[in-house]
C-alpha cells in the first residue's frame, strides 16, 4: 500500500472516529446551543 493511500485511510478512520465520538456525546460544532459559558443567564431553582 502506498504511503498516501495509507495516510488517507488513517484520515478516514480519524473522521469516522470523530463522527462516532460526536454522535456519542451529542456534539456538533454547528449546534444552535450548548452549555452556557460564564456570564450566561443565572437561574435559581426552577421547580418546587
Amino acid at each position, binding site marked *: 500500500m502506498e504511503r498516501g493511500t495509507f495516510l488517507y485511510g488513517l484520515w478516514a478512520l480519524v*473522521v469516522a472516529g470523530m463522527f462516532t465520538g460526536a454522535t456519542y456525546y451529542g456534539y456538533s460544532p454547528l449546534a444552535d446551543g450548548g452549555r452556557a459559558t460564564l456570564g450566561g443567564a443565572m437561574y435559581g431553582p426552577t421547580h418546587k
Partner: protein
Amino acid sequence: MLAEMASEPGPDTVAAAPPAAAAASTRALSCPACGGAIEVRAAGYTVTIVCRYCSSVIDVANPEARLITKYEEAVQELEIPLGARGTLRGVEWEVIGYLRRSEHGSYGWEEYLLFNPYYGYRWVITNGRGWSFGEMLTRAPDWGVGGPALDGQSYNPFFSNGQAQVDYVLGEFYWRVKVGEEVATDDYVRPGWMLSREANESEISWTLSALLDPAEMEGAFGIIAPRDAWPPLPHQPSPYARPLKAAAKIGAIAALLLIVLAFAFGGSTLLYDNNLPVTFDGQTRTQTLGPITVTRPWQMVAIRADAGNIDNAWVDLDYTLVDRATQETYESYGLAEHYSGSDSDGPWEEGSRDTTAKVAMVPAGTYDLVVEYSGNLWTSSSYSYGGGGYGGDVRISVSQGLVFPSNVIIALVLLLLPLLFLFLRHIRFEKARQGESDVGATGLAGAFSGSDDDDDSGTDFSDMFSTADD
C-alpha cells in the same frame, strides 16, 4: 524515434526488426582516415561505424572499410560512453551507437543504441527530462478507436505529423545512418508507454518504448536521471492517478459507513410538549416548562417551536435548559416568523412558522425548560410592538437524539477534501502533460481546460494546488 532498415520493403510494409541473432562477434578495423583501431562489437550486423578518434563514418559492409564521410564536428562527450555496459530489465546491454535527433533543430532528443548478442538491439532515449527503453516491433499494431492498439492496450495520439531528422551520429548502427536523414513521425501514448511510428518513402517502422524509472538508469549506467520532471513526459503516468483511485475506494467505504451510522442512530425520542399562549404586544414573557428527563449519558436535545398560523408576525424565543440537580444551564434560541403580502410582482410570502433549536452535549438528568418569548406584529410600513391581541399558541416540543445532520455533512466534506486535493493535482498534472500534445488535452484534462489555453494561462482550481517545486 526509430530507424529505417537497410533493406527496402514497400511503403506500406512494416520494416523488419533489427537482427536479434545469438551469434555475434567482435571484429577489429583500422580507420582509413586516421589509422585508429576500431572495434566492431556487433560484427556481422553493423553496417556503418563512426571512428571514435576522428568521427569519420566508415562503411563496415565494405570489406575494405571504405571511408564514407567525415564530420568536422568533434566527438562530443556522451552521457553514456560508447562501449559502456549496463543491465536493464534483466539483460546486460552494451552501448554501441548514439544519435542526436530533432524536429528540424527543435525539440531535440538523444538515442543510444544498445546491443546484446542474444537479444539484439534496443534503444534508450532521453529528451533530458527522463529516459525510455525502446524496442523495434516486428509487427504493426492494430488500429483501435482513435488510435493504435497493441496486445489489447490502446494508445492515444500525442504527437502527429512530425519530421525527425538526424543531427549527429556516433558509433555503429545496423543501417546506413547519416546526418540529415528524415522520417515522418507519429507518437501514441498510454501511461508508461509510447508507441512511435516512423515512415519514409520506402518503409514504416514501429517502436514501443517503456518509461524507465530513474533508479533503473542509475542502476544500469550510473545516470542520475531527473525526477519529477516538469512538464511531465508524454507517456509519464500521473503519480496521483493510483492514489486517487485507492483513496476514492476508501472514501466511498467510509462515507457509506457514516451514512449507515447516521441512519442507525438518527432517530429521536419525544420527551415533552406543551403550548405557550402568545400575545403580539412585544412584551417578553417567561414560562417554565417541564420536567424533562433525558436518560442517555450525553445527547442532543432538540426544541421545536411551531407558531401555528401566524402571519406578518414573529415570535422570539430564548430557551434555557436548567438542570434541576446542578442548576447548570444550556442555552439556545429560536425565531418563528411568517410574512406575506402583495406587490408589483404579485403575492409573496417568506419565513418559517416553525423553528428547531438543537442543543449539544446535554448530560443525563432532569431539566426545566425556561422559555422567554415575545410576539410581534409587522406591517409593510413599520414594525409594530403593540396593539396586537392574542395570537394563538406556540407549540413547544422537546426531543432527544444523537446525530446532528450537520455532523454528517462535515464528516463527508472532511472525507472529500483530500480526494479533491488529489483530483485537482491529477488534473493539473494531466493538463501539463498533454499541454505538449499536438492533439490537445483529452479526457479529464480536456474537460477542465479552457479553450486553447495552456498550463500557464488563466486561473483554474487545479492551479490552486501548484507548488514551487513543480
